[in-house]
């Protein structure tokens, strides 16, 4: 099923690339998107949730972007770029004549200012540390300076960025919202309220924001990509309960469910041919896993961790969530480059698990704790894990708690023996395997407040990962991915996690809206949809 889905996504993405995003679509009409929660902020340096992430992408642009529906890097505000042979200097040629929503032309100074602003601690950006390879990062991050020594404005349309060390995923990092270009004068005018008064260069501009009720995006008529956006406006209706939003979609009142199909109605929707055809399914860069704390006995023994890996019936857990995921056998999700298709992982085999435990001197089992987030379906998944482990003699006490409490325990050494990651981790910020390693499996993240909840640290694996990220020559791209595949094979052998499943995405939209391909509804970086390339079928 995974392969088929992927294959279909690849085909659709391919079709999208072969010029299907043409000019034959009439750009007019509007769409209504529903959300339950308020929009937190539309400041690209600050916004970091699944709701505002893709909204910000439509208001702002960065030097680099992805082709719609794919993970393929394309130049955006940069017209072209060059990477020096040592991988340390990036030179960007900017597009001419790009203007902010206030009419002023965007220049290299704005790019530099925006990066400095994100790293400046006063901005409180959650993404600042992604740019720690830029020369001068430490000075800005510590507050000693406000200008980045490594970023040079050569002329209004040329910019160079120097790095301290080669950083192969650097272009991906520039495609993150945190590097998007903001208008300095608007930031200075609105101060802390810039997130409510965003001014960027994006396909849409903010037209209305009624707190707690609605946010309206209107077409940016001066957008530099001629045939985008394809709608006159996007209306976000806020405060909508997901089940009510679904009823409204069925009645044709709204076009897209921002919060997805409510779990209680999922089987019902997928079993109804009329409703199911409005659902687009695709993979996402997500793995749900159980962390096994390598600093808590007896989980510090690799044989015990492998035993627990053999004990879990992942198919049954996937059934618990109505098949909204595929069982995982490794850390990386199938949609991620460097995913190892030949890997089979630890098969479900309770007898082998018991034998491994006996070899480790724990024939009678042991007792431990499993932390999990307290909202459905996570406690039920934790119970399934508890039952599977009970079958091999391991007694598990479930601690179902508020996510903030679980995250705190995960980042405290020795506090949480096992954590079910559901609802909290991990979805990649950008489509590169490095984003599935350093923050959750690397030695540097095995620190207080870190997200390496296994407290796993294998220096050899860290070194190998470092070598992979030093391969910046585009000609080495495949060799680099192979190196990452090897990194994750070693991680699997050390078994700091039990990979459980990879969630699938199910985007439900009305027949009033469409894209040149369904891939834009399961775009890897735009969730729930790539707003810039949706068009209205009733406006054609």
């Amino acid at each position, binding site marked *: 099923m995974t392969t088929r889905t992927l294959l279909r996504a690849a085909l659709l993405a391919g079709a999208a690339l072969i010029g299907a995003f043409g000019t034959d679509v009439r750009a007019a009409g509007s769409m209504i998107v529903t959300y*339950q*929660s*308020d929009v*937190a*902020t539309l*400041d690209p340096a*600050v916004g*970091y949730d699944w709701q505002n992430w893709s909204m910000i992408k439509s208001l702002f642009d960065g030097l680099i972007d992805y082709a719609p529906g794919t993970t393929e890097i394309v130049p955006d505000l940069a017209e072209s770029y060059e990477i020096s042979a040592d991988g340390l200097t990036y030179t960007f040629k900017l597009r001419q004549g790009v203007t902010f929503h206030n009419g002023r032309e965007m220049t290299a100074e704005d790019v530099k200012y925006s990066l400095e602003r994100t790293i400046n*601690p*006063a901005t*409180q950006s*959650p*993404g*600042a*540390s*992604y740019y*720690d390879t830029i020369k001068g990062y430490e000075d800005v*991050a*510590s*507050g000693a300076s406000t200008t980045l020594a490594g970023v040079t404005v050569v002329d209004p349309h040329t910019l160079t960025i120097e790095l301290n060390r080669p950083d192969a995923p650097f272009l991906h990092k520039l495609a993150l919202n945190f590097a998007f270009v903001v208008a300095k004068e608007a930031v200075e005018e609105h101060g*802390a*309220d810039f*997130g*409510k008064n965003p001014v960027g260069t994006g396909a849409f501009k903010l037209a209305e924001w*009624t*707190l*707690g*009720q609605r946010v309206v995006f209107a077409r940016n008529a001066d957008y530099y990509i001629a045939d985008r956006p394809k709608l006159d406006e996007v209306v976000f*209706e*806020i*405060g*909508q*309960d997901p*089940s*009510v939003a679904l*009823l*409204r979609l069925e*009645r044709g*009142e709204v076009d897209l469910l921002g919060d997805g199909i409510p779990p209680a109605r999922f089987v019902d929707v997928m079993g109804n041919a009329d409703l199911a055809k409005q659902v687009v399914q695709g993979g996402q860069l997500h793995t749900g896993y159980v962390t096994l704390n390598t600093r808590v006995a007896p989980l510090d023994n690799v044989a015990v961790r492998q035993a627990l890996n053999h004990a879990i019936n992942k198919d049954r857990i996937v059934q618990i969530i109505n098949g909204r995921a595929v069982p995982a056998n490794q850390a990386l999700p199938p949609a991620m480059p460097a995913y190892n298709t030949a890997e089979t992982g630890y098969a479900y085999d309770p007898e082998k698990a018991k034998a491994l435990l006996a070899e480790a001197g724990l024939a009678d089992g042991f007792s431990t704790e499993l932390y999990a987030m307290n909202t459905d379906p996570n406690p039920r998944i934790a119970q399934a894990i508890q039952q599977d482990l009970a079958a091999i003699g391991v007694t598990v006490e479930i601690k179902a708690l*508020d996510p*903030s*409490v679980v*995250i*705190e325990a995960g*980042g405290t050494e020795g506090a949480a023996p096992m954590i079910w990651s559901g609802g909290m*981790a991990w979805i990649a*910020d950008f489509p590169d395997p490095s984003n599935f390693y350093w*923050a959750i499996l690397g030695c540097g993240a095995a*620190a*207080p*407040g*870190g*997200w390496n909840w296994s407290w796993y640290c294998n220096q050899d694996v860290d070194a190998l990962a470092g070598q992979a990220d030093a391969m910046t020559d585009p000609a080495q791209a495949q060799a680099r991915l192979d190196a990452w595949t090897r990194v994750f094979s070693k991680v699997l052998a050390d078994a700091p996690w039990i990979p459980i499943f990879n969630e699938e995405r199910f985007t439900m939209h009305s027949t009033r809206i469409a894209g040149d391909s369904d891939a834009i509804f399961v775009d890897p970086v735009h969730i729930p949809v790539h707003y810039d390339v949706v068009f209205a079928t009733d406006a054609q």
Partner: protein
Amino acid sequence: MIRFLARRLAQAVVILLGVTVVTFALAFLIPADPARMIAGRAATVETVASIRHQLGLDQPIPVQYARYLGRLAQGDLGRSYAQKTEVVELIGSRLPATLLLLAGAIFCELAIGLPAGIFAATRRGRFADRAVMTLSFVGVSAPQFVVGLLLLYVFAYLLGLFPLSGYGGLEHLVLPALTLGLAGGGFYSRMTRASMVGVLGQDYIRTARAKGVAETGVVLRHGLRNAILPIVAMIGIDIGLFMSGAVVVESVFGWPGIGQLAWQAIQRVDIPIMMGVTLTAATAIVLGNVIADLATALIDPRIRLN
């Protein structure tokens, strides 16, 4: 009367100060670190420390509390951690919606509860009485999110009589106000009945009947007027009860009030909003009680003289 009012208001201020102490302490008992929640998962330990410093979270709790009170005295509730907006602005933009919902709910519960209670009291022990009391029991016990979704499904989705959610005209108000008001209506019908049954057994009712006053006059003028005292007191208390009910009802109906705001803030550990909403709700409860006291005092001179 002025002295009575002054005393009640002074008490209200003390109570609200107590509320700030308790909510502030509770916010710090949550084992989650707000700085870490703001910093996000990509942040380094240094970033988290810098955010903690900027928010003043690295200061001793009494110092933080003193600063909070100082800002509160100037009407500043702080800035939301997650939404990066002034809490005063967030609450201010949502308070009218909640007040409108409250007014609608109080109207519904009285419109349901008073007639039902009077009706049952005048038919005490008969089938009609038992039927009304059973229905009121259902109304009181049914969880609001179930009632809300049920009303929504039947009257908005199946019958299409009302919009499925939203805010604006009277048609948007009916279902959420009814959801909130049904439980109160059930409660009021029981209370009105009990109170009326007590009053209708009094000597002066017998006198009125003996004088030949029409039964409607006996019930409404002589009966209800004397039975209504505890009900007026309850309306004040209801304002407080509805503040908690609003959290559920506003979420179900997409009603842009402060209950919805509170619900989101709790999920994001957004302490400034949680504190602001708690304080607003506490103020409403305290004011509701003061108003109830005043109203009963106006109706019944015995209360204000004591």
